[in-house]
């Protein structure tokens, strides 16, 4: 267990049972390679937590383990204080834990509206529902339209997902995650591959939905500008381990982080 702490010092976390999302000793091994190594994390309700780290640090694997897309090799996961280590992936959205993907994962042949509507329907009817009566189009459309409106995709609702621009695909991914009606949302590089204008728009969008919905957010991001400007606290991963956790200022000032991630400018070789 991590220290019970207010989380002021870098590298420490609050109690997992008080947090919206938490993990203790979370570990994921692939053969000989340890991708996530004994990670303790506790994100308090309402916080925007950024996860940074060099390529191959295990950030996406951490997300996959937290959402049980990959079963962890060891450790426990917590959601709003409840242990969820063995809860299957498909049940987690129904408990309020949603995610978006690094690459654009969509139901490619379906329209934008259908993509979101199916998630709304799933969110309201559970992991499995017969739902043989009724019309797949008319139910849940209003809610889906509302979500599309909030991410700015209303005008493209009848476009087939695979024909969207890269930026709109990212928006749709976020819209689908929001459609699960989450309390905790994990976003995996929501701005990757976007130009600076679109990056700004997505950043604004993230900020807006967080404020409007009171979400707890966890975000993998490479753009330090974004990370420093929007996150409440930052967790730095390196080679699967948590190097430090703290406010942007604390992390920037941390020598270890400087050395390992930010390029080690002062290091002499």
């Amino acid at each position: 267990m991590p220290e019970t702490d207010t989380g002021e010092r870098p590298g420490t976390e609050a109690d997992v049972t008080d947090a919206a999302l938490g993990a203790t000793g979370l570990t994921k091994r692939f053969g000989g390679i340890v991708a996530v190594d004994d990670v303790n994390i506790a994100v308090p309700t309402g916080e925007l937590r950024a996860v940074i780290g060099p390529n191959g640090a295990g950030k996406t694997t951490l997300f996959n383990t937290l959402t049980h897309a990959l079963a962890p090799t060891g450790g426990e996961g917590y959601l709003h204080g409840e242990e969820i280590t063995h809860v299957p992936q498909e049940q987690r959205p129904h408990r309020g834990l949603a995610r978006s993907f690094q690459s654009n994962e969509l139901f490619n042949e379906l329209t934008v509206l259908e993509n979101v509507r199916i998630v709304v329907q799933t969110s309201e009817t559970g992991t499995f529902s017969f739902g043989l009566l009724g019309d797949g189009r008319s139910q849940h459309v209003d809610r889906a339209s509302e979500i599309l409106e909030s991410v700015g995709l209303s005008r493209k609702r009848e476009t087939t997902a695979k024909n969207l621009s890269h930026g709109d695909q990212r928006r749709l991914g976020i819209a689908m995650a929001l459609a699960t009606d989450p309390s905790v949302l994990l976003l995996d590089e929501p701005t990757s591959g976007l130009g600076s204008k679109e990056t700004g728009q997505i950043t604004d969008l993230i900020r807006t939905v967080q404020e409007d919905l009171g979400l707890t957010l966890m975000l993998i991001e490479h753009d330090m500008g974004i990370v420093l400007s929007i996150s409440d606290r930052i967790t730095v991963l390196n080679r699967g381990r948590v190097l430090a956790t703290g406010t942007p200022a604390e992390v920037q000032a941390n020598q270890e982080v400087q050395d390992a991630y930010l390029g080690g400018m002062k290091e002499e070789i």
Partner: protein
Amino acid sequence: MNEIPLPGSSSRSLSLAEAAIWSVLLLVTVLSAVTRPGLFVDQVLGGLVYGLILVLIALGLSIVLGLLGIVNFAHGALFMLGAYFSYQFMAVWGVSFWIALIAAPLVVGLVGVVIERGVLRYLYDEDPLNGLLATFGLSLMIGEATRAIWGGAPKSVAAPQILSKGMDLGITTVARIRLFTVLVAVIVIAAVYLLIERTDFGLSVRAGVLDREMAEFLGVNMNVRFISMFVLGATIAGLGGVLRGTAVGMDVAMDEQFIILAFVVVVVGGIGSLFGSVVAGLLIGGTAYLTPLYLSTLASITNIEAINVPGIGGLVPYLVMIVVLLVRPRGLFGQEGFLE
């Protein structure tokens, strides 16, 4: 919510039950061998020949699947063509068996080139289902063409004198063509093994299976290798067809019958494992031929005639596959993540 347990997660703590099963099997084997030695040897040899023919087809299937990611349903049609070409050579043109044995598979190899260049190369890196469907259509075409050219009635060819005689083993007589089949199959299997595991060509093929593009970056022209391996697979299937056709004759149904069983062999052995295919081929050939004998032995011991299910031999390969896949989802020697 998720009350349905996922199948295939059984534990390995069945040692007592396993021991019981093995000892019953051993007992029945001994009983069958003692009470009807002639029949027993016949069935063992029959299973061996049948299994090796399946392995000859499965080798090509397995290579094409591993290398190109294509489930080649038309491979059984190539096997059938081997048999019919040998008929064309021997019965129609009067060429000797020994020449047909070499020439017919080579012509099948040519058909393989046409199939690869004409159809399959458009399906690389596509959904594996498309490859399966397209080759399924090809096998239909080849089947109809065969019917149009040689007619729907079964055909047979005469084996050369030296192979047509029986060999007296004391308790039973064995057709020499069957022993010849075993000999040729073993040589071919060994040669394929050596080619793939011991030569530089084989090394580049194995690398191509693991990461085609990386092998190309290192200077390997994978296309040439793909075509050669496809043709090799086709030729071996053709050879199997010649041997089978000479031993028991041929008909237009042999395509479907053998391709399905060869798939069963590949899946049971584990996709991507040549060694697995060999083991599974022998396992399936053996069980298909020995199960009826064992059941009839059991029936005569226990006096329960119901045990002696007629025609069970045809079902056994499928039962073996169902059991193997439910216990070991990737087959006996399959690799993680392959085509899942």
